[in-house]
């Protein structure tokens, strides 16, 4: 019987692949929940630091921190790109990188230079192959990213901004909308976009220890770090969701393939039997 053995071998190998993909699917499904919890846990801090920032800027309307001032001319643009460490998550990273490339092209068209900070192995692997400056990199953030691991990379960008080597900073990440959809997003990190906080009714001032400017600086740096941390968590949740969908599709495809191959195998078997019978019948007739 020709082909029969090969087909069963193929079916078995696809079955193994299917087992792996469906296991990965289930693992990702359980991780989505956890990363969503992490994401929600950052909300109170963001809310409160926004409130403190609002109070500080209301109390010191005359003082403008460099992080809040728009520059006249944009000579160099910085990007903080949040990507995943591992693959097998569909078009998640590629869609994000496409967005970055489009933006880079646009700024280069206007004569601005570009500098990148990459978080996650996929971003550095992708962007090192194109002609662009990578100022800092961090990877292996794991399932429970820690702010400590991000501080260094963020500081590289903030220092460059302070020293006016960079005039605009974007953060790029995948926004987790729900399990079925994640959207690549490009947001301006610096200068801080204007926020309209709730009006403070009374005019008052704080007692500052040590002084207002140093405090405002610390608060703004913490705010930016919290923002980037939140983006990393959004991206993590997106990664798990995208991987779950990709693995679900792979499992379904493997099932279809197995069905088709089983059909082919049965046909081959039947053909072989028919042939054998007709040979026997033919042989008997000849005798």
């Amino acid at each position, binding site marked *: 019987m*020709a*082909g029969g053995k*090969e*087909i069963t071998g*193929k079916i078995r190998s696809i079955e193994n692949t299917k087992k792996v993909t469906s296991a990965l699917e289930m693992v990702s499904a359980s991780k989505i929940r956890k990363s969503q919890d*992490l994401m929600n*846990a*950052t909300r*109170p*801090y963001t809310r*409160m*630091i926004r*409130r*403190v920032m609002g*109070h*500080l800027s209301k109390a010191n309307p005359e003082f403008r921190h460099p992080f809040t001032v728009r520059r006249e001319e944009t000579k160099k643009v910085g990007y903080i790109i949040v990507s995943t460490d591992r693959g097998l998550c569909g078009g998640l990273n590629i869609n994000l990188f496409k967005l970055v490339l489009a933006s880079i092209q646009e700024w280069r068209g206007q004569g601005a230079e570009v500098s990148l*900070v*990459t978080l996650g*192995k996929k971003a*550095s*692997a992708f962007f*090192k*192959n194109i002609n662009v400056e*990578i*100022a*800092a*990199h*961090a*990877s292996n953030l794991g399932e429970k990213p*820690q*702010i*400590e691991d991000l*501080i*260094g*990379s963020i*500081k*590289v960008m903030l*220092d460059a901004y302070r020293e006016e080597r960079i005039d605009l900073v974007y953060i790029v990440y995948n926004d987790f909308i729900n399990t079925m959809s994640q959207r690549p997003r490009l947001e301006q990190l610096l200068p801080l976009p204007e926020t309209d906080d709730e009006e403070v009714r009374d005019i*008052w*001032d*704080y*007692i*500052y*220890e*040590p002084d207002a400017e*140093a*405090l405002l600086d*610390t*608060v703004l740096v*913490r705010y930016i*770090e*919290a923002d980037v*941390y939140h983006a990393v968590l959004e991206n993590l949740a997106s990664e798990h969701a995208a991987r779950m969908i990709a693995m679900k599709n792979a499992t379904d495809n493997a099932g279809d393939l197995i069905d*088709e*191959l089983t059909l*082919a195998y049965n*046909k*081959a078997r039947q*053909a072989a039997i028919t042939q054998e019978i007709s040979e026997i019948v033919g042989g008997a007739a000849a005798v």
Partner: protein
Amino acid sequence: MKHTIQCDIVSAQEEIFSGEATMIFATGSVGELGISPRHAPLITQLKPGPVRVQRPDGDEAFFFVGGGILEVMPHVVTVLADTAVRADDLDQAAAQRAKEEAERALQDRTGEVEVAEAQARLVEAVAQLRALEQLRKQVKRR
């Protein structure tokens, strides 16, 4: 007159404490602080150290913060705690590490190896698919 004040302690990674307090102790950048209700508005940096919260029922809650910011408003005390111990030279070292990491990633020639490996696997997969297709045609012809 209310003898308690709302106290919120949060870090960027989680909410640590939220509740009423009769007194809050912390280590500010210029000295120890004790904050009771109706304290004047104040904002200060915190040094790494314990934050103690006295509850209305007499209990005391202890938290260790690695630094951060403490804000006193008329109705609420907010502690924005840092999860990590922060100092300028430590941050500088972290920035340096991130830069070196970038250089290493750039020098890494494994990128090419990865691409070559992926291409080899792609060729193999395509060959398998073609073989399957032929097999299927053969079966149909019979």
